[in-house]
């Protein structure tokens, strides 16, 4: 497949996953802020911090903005100049889908386009004012529809593998960030009553779409150790770090004939990270959660950087020089 198209597929996967994940995080945090008897600042500021946009938000809207749920939601949902807002992700996903429409097929294109048209139209803006939860739900359902269509309408070969690689690498980063965000909230709630602690853990599970799966696995027992090990190491849970990493590595193996420098370096880095996580588990998590998650987020970022523009099987210059030598 064309290298440029591989790059577009990878990013399409990332943007769709990112839109879903951001909408879910906003939806869950909103519920948490209503229920949890925590000051709004403790609920919303961590969300902005882990998204990497805290300095921008503070410089645009003032340091107090992070404690204003409405301001944070507006910024994370609608702001066109926020590189990780839902709007930016949906727009980029739609632009990407449009430029590889012939590769992803009509159904995925139409689902992405419909989401974009709805989100940018009056209906979504009006609904945001009187039924905000439904807006987040709509975004999540539409993005999940796109991802479902990817698996059920595309050929399971290179383009889908690159797209899914994007989904997995975005997701592993998102889960790590969400867990880290929770670490911030938890820190603020230190010494509070156990009931609140439990509410926070459940909220974290919901933020990762893992509430029901976790409760079934643990038969209703909620503990810090249980939740952390579930989100880090549960290989059967499709949003755990281990699941996403292993799936990404399996995709790399399927894409093995791709001989580019970028993919080789990224794959090696992720293999190392996977082994490192195994070791952490064996050693009983010696690092602080925050330190561990920071390492994961950094490594994923570096791997994505290596992939950037690195989808070319054999660079043009190298090909031409080889061809010249053989003549």
């Amino acid at each position: 497949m064309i290298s440029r198209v591989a790059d577009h597929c990878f990013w399409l996967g990332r943007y769709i996953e990112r839109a879903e994940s951001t909408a879910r995080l906003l939806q869950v945090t909103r519920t948490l802020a209503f229920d949890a008897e925590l000051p709004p600042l403790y609920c919303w500021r961590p969300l902005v911090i882990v998204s990497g946009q805290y300095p921008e938000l503070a410089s645009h809207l003032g340091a107090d903005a992070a404690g204003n749920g409405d301001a944070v939601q507006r910024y994370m949902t609608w702001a066109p100049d926020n590189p990780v807002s839902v709007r930016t992700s949906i727009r980029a996903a739609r632009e990407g889908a449009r430029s590889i429409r012939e590769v992803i097929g009509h159904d995925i294109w139409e689902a992405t386009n419909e989401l974009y048209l709805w989100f940018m139209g009056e209906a979504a803006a009006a609904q945001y004012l009187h039924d905000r939860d439904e807006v987040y739900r709509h975004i999540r359902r539409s993005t999940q529809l796109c991802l479902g269509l990817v698996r059920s309408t595309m050929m399971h070969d290179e383009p889908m593998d690159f797209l899914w690689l994007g989904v997995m690498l975005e997701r592993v980063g998102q889960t790590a960030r969400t867990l880290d965000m929770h670490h911030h909230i938890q820190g603020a709630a230190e010494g509070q009553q156990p009931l609140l602690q439990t509410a926070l853990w459940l909220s974290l599970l919901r933020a990762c779409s893992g509430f029901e799966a976790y409760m079934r696995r643990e038969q209703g027992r909620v503990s810090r150790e249980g939740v952390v090990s579930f989100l880090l190491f549960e290989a059967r849970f499709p949003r755990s770090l281990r699941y996403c990493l292993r799936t990404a590595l399996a995709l790399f193996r399927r894409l093995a004939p791709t001989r580019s420098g970028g993919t080789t370096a990224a794959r090696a880095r992720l293999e190392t990270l996977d082994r490192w996580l195994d070791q952490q588990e064996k050693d009983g998590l010696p690092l602080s959660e925050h330190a561990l998650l920071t390492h994961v987020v950094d490594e994923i970022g570096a791997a994505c950087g290596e992939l950037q523009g690195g989808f070319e099987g054999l660079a043009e210059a190298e090909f031409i020089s080889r061809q010249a030598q053989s003549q």
Partner: protein
Amino acid sequence: MVLIEQEATRLSTSTVLDGYRALPGTYDELVEAGGKTRQHALMVANLLGNMNADTFARCQALAELALSQRGVTFSVYSDNRGTEKVMPVCLVPRVIGASEWTVLEKGLVQRLTALQMFLDDLYGEQRSLRERVMPADLIFGSKHYLPQLKGMKPPGGVRIHIAGIDLIRSPDGVLRVLEDNLRTPSGVSYVIENRLITKRVFPAAMDRIGVRRVDDYPTQLVETLRSVSPEDPARSTIVVLTPGPFNSAYFEHSFLARSMGIELVEASDLFVSGDQVFVKTTLGPRRVHVIYRRTDDAYIDPEFFRPDSMLGVPGLMRAWAAGQVTLANAPGNGVADDKAIYPYVPDLIRFFLSEEPIIEQVPTFVCARPADREYVLAHLDQLVVKAVDEAGGYGMLMGPEASAAELDMFRERITSDPRRYIAQHRIELSTSPTWVAEERRIEPRRIDLRPFILTGKSGSWVLPGGLTRVALRAGSYVVNSSQGGGSKDTWVQEDATP
């Protein structure tokens, strides 16, 4: 929607067609001057006779929503990134009778055959210039004539693989050629999309009526391209080359690649090595044999044409000249669809084929000819003046509607650079019943027709119908989508004779 149609039959007392009349002095595609429905268009009259304004408005809204969701758009260059607009569509179809189409089809193939022979001749022995069928200075003065290509033969032998010929109908009922498009004619995707929409909105009607299908165009196109490959067609790689997502016709580029099942590439995906063209893939470079390019000549190869172009593939013309890659359409075709050459096409048909032209064209004054120029300057306020190197309805003077200042401006331009201009009397383009949303009724609006002709190794094929464009504004003659035009589904009646 079947429900809506049935409901309409039951409820309607007044229909959207009530009171529809042709404009004076204009041919209407649905009704005769006296108001009687034309025989071949009865199917449309029956369909509309079942609907009142409410039901039609609902169908129209459904169609527009579907087009927007399907992303059937074109871009206008109002800013750097280009703004996407949904192609406006009017649901009232335009019908062409079976017998008229049969003649038209023959005439189009005849015209294409002559134009192809003319191009071969121009880039070959130039007999048509020596024997003065075509004034040599017109050719050498055309910026679309590429003398560097003289003596080169295109791989596969065909030059005009895809042609779009613009036709208009004058008040006497005669369809005439207005313009040839032999470079990168666009619009065929709207033909296919419009048909999909009609089927969705009027399923019952489409079922009953015999209309020739248009959805096999992509298959015909890919077979056409395969047939002219420099290598074994079965093992050839064919790609569509697009300038990118911000091009006004990007939807179509993507549509065609998708429906042909071939890759859509941008110039930066291609490179040339050893006079062969390769596409950069995740598995390394792969050889490309046929390129359906939707970029203009000037932008395909910076080595050959414009060093400043970012859109080109350096060395592409070398590969083409070496016979290693087929370009569709071939470079250099622009000289044959130059508006200044157009007046001579009937003579070219006579010269190359020894036949009389089957399709007439619009009488044209060539400002490069002194007698014509004098007439044009004296009658400027009655004429339509066109710059020969502009397209899309730009660079035009509509004499009858122009201000004194505009007339003066064009008078000066024509005098200082006569070769750049031709002029024609304004033709009262035929009209078709068209939905006018603001008025909630159907009124006559002016239309044209662009049939598409594919030519491969084994001859030409004409897509039944083509793109009908409509000037949506009342009184307007400009059908271009960039200037307030829309399109209609075009129905060619099935031949009744077995």
